[in-house]
């Protein structure tokens, strides 16, 4: 049965049975200790709390530009973004962490988020530098962050207890953060399905590979990545190759910790051109929640438990900062 053709009646029945199941859920959840979106965001924001800012990846800049699609992906997905031509986007470059004033060069994880609007649809993309997660579900991810906050010993113990982190650790050992947002490769991490007109699904991951000149970052202050990026943009657009990796039958698209073999088919969809940047608070990305589960027709989510946890966690972070902003939290705050 195709997911999209579930009848109204079945959906109604599903909701009704879920409601009954949820009535009984306090009985079953008592034993399993499931982390909630609120607990997750509490952990991310930590003790130091920055009202009005994103709870994760709090420091960054808004960017905008266009994607020049070569049309090669349109045979696998009917998403408008893959049609040959130029598709504008707004986006955000950021570093991981809860501190909107943190030093950038030492941040181990950098991120690139994009948002395309095509007709009535929107596609949000939120990418990080690591190609995989260390763990396979949000509850283990929570414990991983707890360990990170506790220090090196706790992290060592955590990874020892989680052999599924092997691919992540191998990547981490081989990776050195660059001194420019323009020199990083950004990964979808989680897998999605491309869906074509005949409703055929293809599991994919993607990455954006830098096509920019290597150069030394002359800045050393805490805003060094932003300053370098602004300087670089004055000389011309920053470009990335948007590449899709196609899973084979034996690859598990629902496991975000497992890399797919390097010989999997790769298809380049076109080039991303970043042409402008803005400070994040006055920029056009500030009000947007880059929930990566806002998808256009032609792209659907896999059952990956970490991917499916992202919507609720992003929504909780967005709700908190929206309320704080309404209460005036950012009125005195300068862009940073």
């Amino acid at each position, binding site marked *: 049965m195709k997911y999209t053709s579930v009848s109204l009646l079945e*959906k109604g029945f599903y909701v009704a049975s879920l409601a009954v199941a949820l009535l009984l859920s306090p009985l079953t959840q008592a034993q399993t200790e499931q982390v909630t979106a609120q607990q997750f965001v509490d952990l991310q924001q930590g003790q130091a709390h920055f009202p009005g800012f994103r709870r994760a990846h709090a420091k960054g800049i808004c960017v905008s530009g266009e994607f020049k699609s070569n049309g090669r992906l349109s045979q696998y997905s009917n998403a408008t973004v893959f049609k040959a031509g130029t598709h504008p986007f707004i986006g955000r470059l950021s570093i991981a962490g809860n501190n909107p004033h943190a030093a950038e060069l030492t941040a181990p994880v950098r991120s690139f988020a994009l948002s395309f609007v095509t007709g009535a649809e929107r596609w949000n993309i939120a990418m990080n530098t690591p190609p995989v997660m260390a763990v396979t579900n949000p509850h283990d991810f929570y414990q991983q962050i707890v360990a990170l906050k506790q220090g090196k010993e706790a992290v060592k113990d955590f990874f020892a207890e989680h052999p599924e982190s092997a691919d992540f650790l191998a990547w981490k050992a081989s990776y050195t953060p660059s001194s420019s947002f323009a020199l990083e490769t950004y990964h979808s991490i989680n897998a999605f399905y491309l869906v074509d007109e005949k409703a055929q699904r293809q599991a994919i991951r993607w990455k954006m590979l830098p096509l920019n000149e290597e150069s030394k970052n002359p800045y050393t202050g805490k805003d060094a990545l932003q300053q370098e990026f602004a300087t670089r943009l004055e000389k011309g657009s920053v470009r990335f190759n948007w590449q899709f990796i196609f899973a084979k039958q034996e690859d598990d698209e629902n496991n975000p910790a497992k890399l797919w073999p390097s010989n999997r088919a790769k298809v380049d969809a076109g080039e991303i051109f970043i042409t402008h940047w803005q400070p994040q608070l006055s920029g056009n990305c500030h009000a947007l929640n880059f929930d990566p589960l806002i998808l256009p027709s032609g792209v659907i989510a896999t059952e990956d438990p970490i991917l499916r946890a992202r919507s609720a966690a992003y929504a909780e972070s967005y709700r908190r900062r929206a309320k704080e902003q309404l209460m005036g939290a950012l009125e005195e705050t300068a862009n940073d």
Partner: protein
Amino acid sequence: MTDQITRFNLAMRVLHWSMALLIFAMVFAGLAMVRALEPWQLTLLGLHKPFGTLALLLLLLRFLIRIKSSTPSLPSGMSTIQVKLAKFSHWLLYALMLIIPTSGLLMQYYAARPIVVFDFFTIPAAMVPHIEYFAVFREGHSLAILLLITVLAVHIGAALYHHFIRKDGVLKSML
């Protein structure tokens, strides 16, 4: 004078009970999906929004039928204050049933999140999100739900009071 009506008409009864079921399912779905990090969260979120849209459409239909139909009068012997409270709570329920789906739709609109309604059509969202408007409707949505749960408790309590203590025809008029 025509016969005294003792029951709500069929359309009103069907709408009352089907919306009761829908509202209970929606409240539980909503409370669960804002907390859960489980894989079914996305599925539930994808059902909550179109069913909320359906609830709004059903309410408009129900409201039309309500103003065009005669309704049973309240039993005699109720104090003026009880009658006033009964009428007020019913209009408050109508108001909340309007405010809740409307605030839900508007918070999605200002957060720039399009709503797919049963694969039939997509309700477009703002091109440019507005985070402060989102905050107003997001918090309003939650507060209205809390008020709804309170008023529903009174509503159900009153129905049981009429049936088991006063032993009048109020609950039966909706069966």
